[in-house]
């Protein structure tokens, strides 16, 4: 009997490990009141960079999007870019041309040749967009959530389509931190209702089934949503979601490596990864339900 019980329990564990995840499980819909089309100016000047507060400076003013690019915004871009031929459908993915990187023969470096590269996959259930065969639209309930399942090429293509660009790591860091040495965009400590991270217990999360999901952009702004009180977690310059929710692609291409860097932590990582200086990276074709982006621009169009 005992052996039977042990066998049954083991089987139960194994079955529970294999149970399907409903990626389309209903999600609450909230208007956060933060406009994803808004930008803020980050002034030129010195700031403290990295974990050990190295002195750094950016000698020009630049603007960054207040929030991550949303599914609705990205769908709009895809439709426009598809219509004018900037991007194309190639099999089960949306692709666009990239001019390639200089190859320096670094250890583990892989060559990124000129050619067409994936922007987003079309056959991945985690994508929060629908494609009718002609047009893209954001899935119901997910329009104001950050665009995910987007490669570095996809993020870059979006920004450049509108004459903008991805922020450099330094630009991203200054925008998140301001001029002091805070570890989080809003200050020194992290509470569960500051940001969306692993087991942060936000209304979109259910760790017993689908796990952590994205929250709408600008969600942590001090508003209360069906009784869930958030803290206003904007950065010193007023950017939201600079810690948690989704990793954000940055634009730097470094010598001796093909990896592209992401900042900010995500819904799928522990709190210590939300510290401003923590970096993640991946090949530029990598897509994930926990990776998104936002754009930067300068007045002169740079």
């Amino acid at each position: 009997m005992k052996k039977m019980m042990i066998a049954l329990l083991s089987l139960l564990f194994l079955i529970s490990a294999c149970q399907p995840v409903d990626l389309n499980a209903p999600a609450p819909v909230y208007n956060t009141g933060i406009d994803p089309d808004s930008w803020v100016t980050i002034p030129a000047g010195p700031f403290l960079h990295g974990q050990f507060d190295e002195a750094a400076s950016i000698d020009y003013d630049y603007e960054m999007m207040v929030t991550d690019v949303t599914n609705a915004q990205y769908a709009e871009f895809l439709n426009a870019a598809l219509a004018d031929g900037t991007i194309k459908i190639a099999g089960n993915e949306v692709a666009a041309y990239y001019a390639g990187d200089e190859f320096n023969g670094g250890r583990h470096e892989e060559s990124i040749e000129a050619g067409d590269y994936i922007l987003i996959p079309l056959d991945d259930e985690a994508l929060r967009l629908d494609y009718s065969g002609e047009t893209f639209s954001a899935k119901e309930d997910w329009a104001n959530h950050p665009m995910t399942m987007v490669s570095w090429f996809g993020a870059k293509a979006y920004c450049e389509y509108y004459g903008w660009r991805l922020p450099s790591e330094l630009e991203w860091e200054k925008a998140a931190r301001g001029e002091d040495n805070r570890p989080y965009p809003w200050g020194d400590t992290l509470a569960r209702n500051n940001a969306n991270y692993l087991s942060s217990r936000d209304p979109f999360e259910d760790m017993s089934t689908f796990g952590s999901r994205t929250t709408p952009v600008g969600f942590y702004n001090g508003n209360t949503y069906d009784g869930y009180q958030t803290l206003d977690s904007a950065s010193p310059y007023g950017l939201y979601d600079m810690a948690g929710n989704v990793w954000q692609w940055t634009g730097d291409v470094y010598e001796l490596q093909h990896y592209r860097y992401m900042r900010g932590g995500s819904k799928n990582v522990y709190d210590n990864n939300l510290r401003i200086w923590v970096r993640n990276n991946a090949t530029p074709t990598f897509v994930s339900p926990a990776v998104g982006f936002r754009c930067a621009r300068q007045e002169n169009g740079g």
Partner: protein
Amino acid sequence: MRWLSERFRFLFRSTKGLILTAIALVSLISALFGMLSGPMAEWGIKDVIVRALHMNLVEAEREGRLIILYHSIAMIVIAIETYMIVDLLKVKDNLKVMINSTITIGYLAVILGGLPFAYWGHSWPLHGLYIAGLALIFFAGCTLIYAIWPWREEFKVTDNEYAHTRKGYSLERIAFFAMAAATLISALFGAVPGSYYGNGFETFLAENVVREPVKTVLDLSVIGHLHIMLALIAIACALIICRWMDFKGILHKLAMPLMIVGSLVLAMGTWLVVPFETAAHIVIYGGSTLAMLGALLLVIFSWRKLIRIGLAEKGIKKGNFFQGVAALCRDPLKFGVTWQMVFMNFTVSGVGIFVAVKLDEIFRVWQYMDERSILTGHWHILATLTATILLMYYADFAGLIGKARQWFGWILIIFSDLAFGAVTVYEMRRLIVAEAVQQPLINTTTLLGDIGLGAVLLILAVIMVWRLLDLFKKKGRWRKEADEKLEIFEEVTK
């Protein structure tokens, strides 16, 4: 007063007492600080502990805190292995006292200085105490290699069953010596960057820089240091088990040269990481293969011996397969130490080799965070697995017999392996499940891992409580153990 001094003498002057004290301290430290990360943080226990103990956790200092915590735990484990080595090998009494006292004061200084410095705000005198403790442990190591110096007349082997040179010098002792010497040199590879701290060198966790294409000399030095120290702790553990199992015969003669050359080549490979990072890996593979072959021969010897003894006890001359397995598993502690070495191949060595071979093809295509998960799981399993082997040895000489021995041994084997297996699946999860649908797998592996580790900590706590209660008895086990040596199989020398 006499009550106290007698117990103090046992806990801080006898080998078995010193080991008990060290295990109790490392258990307390692991239990307390383990509550500050992983699922414990997820469940909110970290917040409670931090508030209750008034900890001061500055976010920018997390990596430094972890480094001090790892060193505190590692120094206690090194002290435990040192107590065992000076008891298992013939060492002059005065040197034994000197080594044991130095390393004990050393690790106490490390934890009493380091942990408050790391977790309760910076007090530089405490940091000084921490450094002084590390220095004392290094000095104890220097004394150890002098004390066990294998090329002395009195340490020559007289029994041909044990591996020795033509002149009679014990190869097993040389293996201990090589391991200890390599450890001391490797310690310098951590000490040098440490001494530059704040002067161009900042703390970092090695798993955080694996994808950096350019690393500084000091970075590489730290990376080499941590890899070799963990490997040498595991090799020391294997050599200790050789003594416990009274490893001898032809396999001993084959294994000891492999252990010696393996330890030295492995160590040199990690030192070579500094000037020749790419070539160093090939040397490391060579060294670790040799050391692992040596351990394999120990496993073969040990299992054959356990089967032979088990069958003989039942009066069976030549048993069938099932009788052989029953005989092998008769004593979970003696079977467990070498079984864990075999299991290590599935959860550590095998995974490590697979990752190395498929690095560019699979693992470097993933996001860095997924690769980091493998690295962190990998060395946590190696460290904990080594600890379970030492715990089994401790349970044996602490006098665990009968059903208690069976329960302790089997719970330790089954539940620790359950945890290690679950963590292995967790860390490699991207091979079998996409990020979007990973939660059920994470939940199951986390649950199994927690059940496994929880059970191990529970039986460890039971043993510690048993030994604590024993200290209150006038004629408890402690009184007998105060003068006992560790092993019945003494090193056979002139």
